[in-house]
Every structure is written in C-alpha cells, then in structure tokens.
C-alpha cells in the first residue's frame, strides 16, 4: 500500500498521472494518516530544490500584504505611495528584476525613484501613464515640478511619453535636457561614456543644455543626437535605430565593436564582473547579436570565435588565453 502510494505521489506531483492511477492515489491518500503523509512530504521537501517559481510581481504583492499584517501602524504612511508605484510596475514587468523603490521629498513634491540593479531590465508606468523601460544599472526619478513632468535618468532608458501638451515631459541627464512633445525615444547615458546618446523613434524632441537653454536643437525621427559631457556640444547622426533599441527586445547587438567594450556590455547585461587576464585582445572587433541567451551560451560563442578560455564562478568571469594557443 505505502509503496504504491509513494509511486503515485511522485507521479501526481510531477503531473504525470492518469485517471485510474489518480483514483488509487486518492483512495490510498484517504487511508493515510496525517503523520505518515507528513513524513513523505518532508522527505520530498528536503530532497527537492527545483520548483515552479513564484512570479516576481505576485511575490512582492504577498510581501506587501505580510508587511501590513505584521506592522500595520508604522508602514501605513510610508508604504502607501510606494505601493501605488509598485503595483503598476508589477503588472507590466517584462523580465526578472529586483526593484527597489524609495520615495523622497523634492521641493516639497513627492516623487519616486526606480533603481534597476545590474543584470536586470524593468518596465514601468509613470503616474502620467508614460511608459519607460530601464536597462541594467539605471535609475529614474520622476516628479511634477513647476507644471513640467521631470524625469531624471542615469544609465539607459526607452521612453514612450503620453501626450499632454500643457505639461511638457523633460528627461534630464546631468545638465542636458531632452524636452518631449509626446513621442518614443531611447536615451543612453552610462557613466563610463563621455557622451549621452538620444535616438528618436517617433515624434520629436528638443534638446538643450541647462547652462544655455536658449540654444536648443530639435531632433527628427531616425536621427540621433550625441551630446558631449565634456564641452556640452551636440552632434547629429542618422540611424535606423536597430542597434539603439535592441536591448528593449532583449537583444545584445554588436556592430564592429571592440571586444573591450563588448565585455563591458556583457558585465552590465548579466550583472557580472569580467577579469581579463589577456588584455591584448581588447581591440579585436566583433559583429554579432544574441537574443535572450544565458551567459554561458554567450561566453561559449565568443570563446569559439576568439579562442580564449573562460571560467564562470558566481558573479565573476575570468578570461584567459587558451592553453592550446600557449602551446603554439
């Protein structure tokens, strides 16, 4: 009887049980004491480590409910605003992410700050219904200041701004202002780059430096503006936007890019640290793209092309010359 139960129990958990087997399973379960059942469950619990996972949004929702249950007085005010923001985010999230939301008081106006840790990408909806995708290691704060919708960006973001001509939407990166007139565009402003790249997909945007707001430039679709952080100058380029917006489709794209910069992108994309023990390869050019691949797959593909060896330990990737090359 118990042997039969054990077999059917395992089949049931794996979802591989037919009608007849289910009837015997139900029968033997109904004859099994809670004590005996508990023992079997416990050994399954101890041996098993891989389960269907809890969706991130649901996990946070349960955590929020628990917080209000265990600490009703303290959390009520502080959480109310944050929760409203988390709720919209949870519905729209596209990928696994750890999302930390803080709220701050800025000029007496409540705003919110979204921070995306390394290796994650997040989609969120702002209170004005504009939608923003944030790339790995980026942050965005949003506030309503002096009749304008102000979003301060660090890192990279893709914006679809809801139309509201009476309340301009301004993305601020350092002293660069990108004023939006209802549109869709990508801004890349990572710290290690000495430029900010704004690529326009639809509509139009106006760019100006806070230091000289009267000198503004209007960008048209399929154009990108490169703003130099050093001298505040803005230059124009044509673009098909393929490379600029690849990240929002979960694609990593390289076009004759130096391996050194490719490694930087991989570090950010997967939230890892790469230690390069053979720096002579940093200037080798590479062209290619990856779509939604796991890190080992990407490393394996690069290894085949460049003949290096690599080792992944936790968050660290060590790259070294291949042994075969050394022998040569």
């Amino acid at each position, binding site marked *: 009887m118990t042997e039969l139960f054990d077999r059917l129990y395992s089949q049931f*958990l794996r*979802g*591989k*049980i*037919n*009608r007849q087997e*289910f*009837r015997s*399973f*139900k029968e033997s*379960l*109904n004859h099994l004491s*809670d004590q005996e*059942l*508990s023992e079997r*469950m*416990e050994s*399954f*619990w*101890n041996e*098993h*480590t*891989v*389960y*269907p*996972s*809890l969706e991130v949004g*649901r*996990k946070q929702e*349960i*955590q929020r*409910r*628990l*917080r209000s*249950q*265990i*600490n009703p007085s303290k959390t009520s005010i502080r959480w109310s605003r944050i929760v409203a923001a988390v709720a919209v985010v949870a519905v729209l999230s596209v990928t696994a992410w750890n999302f930390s939301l803080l709220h701050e008081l800025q000029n007496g106006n409540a705003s919110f700050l979204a921070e995306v840790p390394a290796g994650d990408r997040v989609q969120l909806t702002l209170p004005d219904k504009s939608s923003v995708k944030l790339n790995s290691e980026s942050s965005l704060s949003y506030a309503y200041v002096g009749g304008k919708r102000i979003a301060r960006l660090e890192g990279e973001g893709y914006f679809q701004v809801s139309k509201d001509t009476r309340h301009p939407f301004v993305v601020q990166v350092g002293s660069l202002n990108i004023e939006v007139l209802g549109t869709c565009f990508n801004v890349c402003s990572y710290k290690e780059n000495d430029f900010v790249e704004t690529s326009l997909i639809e509509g139009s945007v106006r760019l100006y430096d806070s230091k000289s707001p009267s000198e503004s430039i209007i960008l048209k679709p399929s154009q990108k503006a490169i703003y130099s952080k050093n001298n505040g100058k803005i230059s124009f380029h044509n673009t098909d936007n393929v490379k600029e917006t690849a990240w929002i489709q979960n694609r990593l794209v390289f076009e004759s890019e130096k391996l050194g910069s490719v490694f930087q992108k991989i570090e950010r994309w997967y939230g890892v640290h790469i230690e390069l023990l053979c720096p002579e390869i940093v200037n080798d050019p590479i062209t290619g793209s990856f779509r939604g691949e796991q890190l080992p797959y990407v490393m394996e593909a690069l290894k085949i092309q460049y003949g290096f060896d690599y080792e992944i330990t936790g968050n660290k990737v060590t790259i070294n010359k291949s042994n075969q090359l050394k022998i040569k």
Partner: protein
Amino acid sequence: MNMREISIHSDTIEKLKQGSYEAFDTLYNMYADSLYGFALLHTKSAVQAEDIVQETFLKLWNMRASLSVEGSFKSMLFTIARNHVIDVFRQQINRPDFEDYIRFCEDENLLDNTSVEKIYYDDFIDKLAIAKQKLTPAQRNIFEMSREEGMSNAEIAVLSDVSEQTVKNHLSAALKILREELRKYNFLFALFI
C-alpha cells in the same frame, strides 16, 4: 547545508527573534519561492499556494520568539507550513471536479506537447466555466450537481425526478461536449505559447 549558510541563518533568525523586519524580508526572499512551488505541486492551485505562503510567513512572524537558532531553517519552515498544506492538499484531491481536471491534464499529456506550460486547477475551472455555456440547461444542472456538489447519480435522479439512466445519459453527453470545448482551448493555448 554548508557552514556559511548555517551562520547566515543563525544570525538572521537571531535578528528575527528580536523583531527585525529586515531579517523577516531576507527569509521571505530566500524561501517564498520554494514554499510556493512545493504548495503548488500539491494543491495544483496558484491561489491556494499563495495563501499557504502568506499564512506560513505570518505564523513564522507570530511565533518568532519561540524559534530555535540551532537547526535548519528549511525544516522549521516545513513544520510551520505542514498542517495547512496537508489540509488543502486533501481538500483539493477530494473535490468532485478534481478528477475531471486530472482527465483534462491526461488528454493534454497525450497531445505530447512537452514544452506546453502546465495548466493548473484554477485555470481549468476558469476554462470549464466558459465551456459550460455550450451545455443545455438540463445537462448543465446535472453536471453541476454531480461535479460541484458531489452528488451521486441516484441522488440526482431523485432530486430531478428522472431515471438514473437519464442522469447517466445527460452526464455523459455533457462531459463529451465539455471535453471537446476544452480541447479547443488547449489547442489555442498551445498555439499562443
């Protein structure tokens, strides 16, 4: 469990005992997924599994003072969750329509869509509610008495003032229609993934 894990846990549990919300969050973030998955495999219901997670962590908080710093946290969590999981598991298995759900999964497995996402009991009930619209009022009435209230064919016959054979005929006609309807959703479901 290795040494490092043990020391992280005993620190965290010590903090939890003193009422640290941070320690509570740490344990929730580490274990909510496993507990949810474990409950889901047993109950086949996301709603029930989420409820088990919430209740278990609430109990953990309420009994934090009596927790032992020694020993495995994973085992402690199981002990807290156990009775709730057992109750819901037994209750689900004995639902009159659970066997229909198993049969639905069986049909699906036969299609051999190995990569198709698992359909859980809740989804099945939702789909069934739509499929039931295809039944005649008599078929629907008898199907609900049988599957939702768990009445026997003889009981239904007495209540509806028809013969037991008529009940059987209505039921098998209803099941045939529902199975065909559900198969359509199955097919659509497979296409959309």
